[in-house]
């Protein structure tokens, strides 16, 4: 394992420190591993977070028009409630705070406990749960769908809605609308390596790829032979279309790299996805191509579609300025 690190135990804190040094409007709060805006927004606060290893998520989305604070757990591990509470405090301008949680039981348990305690402190808190990964069965019995790259859109929509001066219930409703309309599907060509583990999270043969793996290196739905970019675009979007009817709608498209995928390959995949969408009468209003929700050093990509109505389109295109995403302005 070769990584630019000092020690596996220090990667989370040093990453956040490095982020704050690059972005003077942000503050790093050590120990609780929170990144927050130095100046509070005066609006409903948006807080997200989760395990580390998904950079630029989540700390990279703190900034004007998106998150007010992000809370980092250890690698692939939910942050604990004490950290989340600090994030909530930093985001709170007295107008309430919305937590954007990815659907993992660890995250939910920690965020819900934090929410409870923050409420006892007198902060109005609510939450939404992102579950966009169509690789996983949508079941109410089990934990159900994971939250993956679509979370970036939920951050954007919630942050833009908050920036309009909307109240907590309105911000939550916008975030819920984004969640209802966003779907993602991913594939990996090489597994990620946790700094503390030192070897890849799963094994793939010379010509094998993993379809539908999780962003923590959880095994996928099935393995397949290496596919061309064209075939891959079809494989991934077929999963999306089987789950949700995007035909003849307008959408936002995110072609997301998992950390070690060259941007070149993401653009090639983007060209293929655009072609498929066109053939279905789907109009792409906005495209993002890049590393937005990664899995440390995994090689691979995911495709996310969010169906837009007038409100979502307006919120999506509203300006935001964060280290990880800049739109409009």
């Amino acid at each position: 394992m070769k990584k630019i690190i000092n020690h596996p135990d220090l990667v989370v804190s040093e990453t956040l420190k490095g982020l704050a040094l690059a972005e003077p409007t942000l503050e790093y709060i050590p120990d609780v591993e929170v990144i927050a805006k130095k100046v509070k927004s005066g609006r409903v606060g948006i807080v997200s977070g989760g395990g580390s290893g998904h950079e630029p998520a989540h700390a990279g989305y703190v900034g004007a028009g998106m998150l007010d604070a992000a809370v980092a757990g250890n690698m692939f591990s939910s942050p604990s409630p004490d950290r989340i509470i600090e994030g909530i405090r930093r985001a709170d301008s007295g107008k309430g705070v919305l937590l954007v949680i990815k659907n993992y039981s660890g995250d939910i348990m920690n965020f819900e406990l934090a929410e409870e305690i923050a409420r006892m402190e007198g902060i109005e808190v609510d939450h939404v749960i992102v579950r966009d990964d169509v690789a996983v069965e949508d079941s109410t019995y089990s934990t159900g769908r994971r939250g993956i790259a679509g979370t970036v859109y939920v951050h954007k929509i919630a942050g833009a809605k908050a920036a309009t001066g909307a109240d907590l219930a309105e911000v939550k409703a916008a975030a819920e609308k984004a969640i209802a309309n966003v779907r993602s599907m991913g594939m990996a060509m090489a597994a990620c390596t946790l700094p503390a583990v030192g070897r890849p999270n799963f094994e793939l043969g010379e010509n094998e790829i993993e379809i539908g793996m999780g962003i923590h290196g959880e095994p996928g739905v099935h393995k397949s032979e290496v596919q061309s970019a064209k075939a891959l675009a079809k494989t991934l979007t077929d999963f999306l279309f089987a789950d949700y009817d995007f035909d003849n709608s307008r959408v936002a498209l995110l072609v997301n790299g998992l950390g070690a995928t060259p941007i070149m390959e993401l653009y090639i995949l983007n060209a293929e996805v655009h072609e498929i969408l066109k053939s279905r009468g789907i109009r792409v209003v906005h495209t993002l191509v890049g590393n937005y929700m990664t899995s440390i050093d995994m090689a691979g990509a995911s495709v996310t579609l969010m169906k837009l109505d007038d409100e979502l389109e307006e919120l999506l295109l509203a300006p935001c300025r964060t280290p990880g995403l800049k739109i409009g302005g």
Partner: protein
Amino acid sequence: MRIDSQLYVAYLLRAYELIRANETYVTDLDLATGDGDHWANLNKGFAKLNDLSEELKTLPLNALFQKIGMTMMATIGGSSGVLYGGAYIAAGKKLAGKEFMTAEDLRDVLQEMLNDIQTRGKAQRGFKTMIDALAPAVDAFTAGLEANSDEKELLGSVKRAAEAGAEATKKMEAVRGRATYQADKGVGHLDPGAVTMAYQISALCDTVAETL
């Protein structure tokens, strides 16, 4: 049976040893069905408890449990951090004013932990989680107390029940935790959280049994 803070901390150190000795094994279990961090998470928590052990020994039992809970929650993180943390904090409330735990107290504590984990995790027995090691251990404890078993024997049966429970997760389909994302729901693999729960129960039983 007379478990005071001193003895409970001795148990923690023994559990830490057992966990440390099984790094590769436990990591591999979580790599097979989850994200590979369970050992690292838990080890970090116990390492922190180890660092704090001198201070912990001096605390009254309820404060000890409260402190263990806060420490585990903050240090372990992830699912197991909040589950263990919440369980210890809940159990600590049962220990107010107590200088030591009797066998009945220990059973009650484990029962309280089980309840808290089930509520917080929205999980039942058979979901292929740490509950599948803890629940049979609590059952065995209750049965042993009802049968008025010899305390050493009782502890032996609790330990065996936890281990058998962990072993039984192999054939279960996961309903909670990351193994649910696998096509086969993790069938054929032990649940790492159940295995490390069994380590802890086993270390606890051994530590206490040696004082009898």
